[in-house]
């Protein structure tokens, strides 16, 4: 038989198993007032440049990657490199152009302002 057949598929042809960071769903607080929705997320150890905030089609994707610096021998380790990721549905009434975010002490604060049309309005009654 001149033809060689591989009975097993070769492992290295399987390109989809790349190294993946463990992912954690971070804890959030969500607040709302008349002007905006405010979202707080705990992301300890994540620096500003490693945070991605995407809004697309009514969905808000949050992602923050933490890379720890290691030095010396590990005696114990309870946390390490991780990706914080969570997705939210946001109402259509959010003004995407005005969304802003700040990061202080490992807490991400995301301001989602409501568009003018969605803000509550007080309607005056005119005397007839």
């Amino acid at each position, binding site marked *: 038989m001149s*033809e060689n*057949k*591989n*009975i*097993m*598929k070769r492992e290295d042809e*399987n390109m*989809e*198993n790349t190294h*993946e960071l*463990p*992912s*954690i*769903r*971070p*804890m*959030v*607080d*969500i*607040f*709302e*007032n008349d002007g905006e*929705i*405010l979202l*707080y997320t*705990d*992301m*300890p*150890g*994540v*620096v500003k440049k490693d945070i991605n905030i995407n809004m697309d089609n009514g969905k808000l994707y949050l992602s923050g990657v933490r890379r*720890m610096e*290691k*030095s*010396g*021998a*590990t*005696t*114990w*380790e*309870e*946390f*390490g490199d*991780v990706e914080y990721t969570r997705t939210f549905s946001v109402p259509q009434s959010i003004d995407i152009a005005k969304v802003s975010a700040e*990061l202080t*002490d*490992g*807490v991400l604060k995301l301001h989602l302002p409501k568009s003018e049309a969605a803000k509550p309005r007080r309607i005056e009654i005119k005397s007839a």
Partner: protein
Amino acid sequence: MFTRWSDIDRMFGVMDLMRGNFDRLSNEFYRSRGNTSSWVLSDGIPRTNLYDKGDSFAICAEVPGFAKEDLNIRLQGNYLEISGKRKSDLPEGYSIHRSERGTFDFSRSMTLPTEVDSSKVEAALKDGILTLTLPKAEAAKPKLISVN
């Protein structure tokens, strides 16, 4: 004969495909189970790492949302206690939709492997991670022994 071989090949191909799917499933399972979503361990204490750097120890702890004033670090011999209280950062005039983070009160103590020099301990807080550098006491430092 050759058609048989291709049959076997196809069968293994299907098995590989199924194994791949199961792998993915179990990966998803462990990813969702292996890490709790919260930054604290189940009994309400923040996660810590301890590294031995030879001359000193480095301890890292996850303390998001804590200010410098909210943390207390006490050291007695080789007994270290970190405690803290996170104040509620609830903004004024907002209604709450979801509250998972909450206020937080913790105390974690640990025994270090050796005595440390308590006068030279340094603590730094950056991006919600507390890093302590604890130089070892003179007697506990590694020493170079020369052969005569």
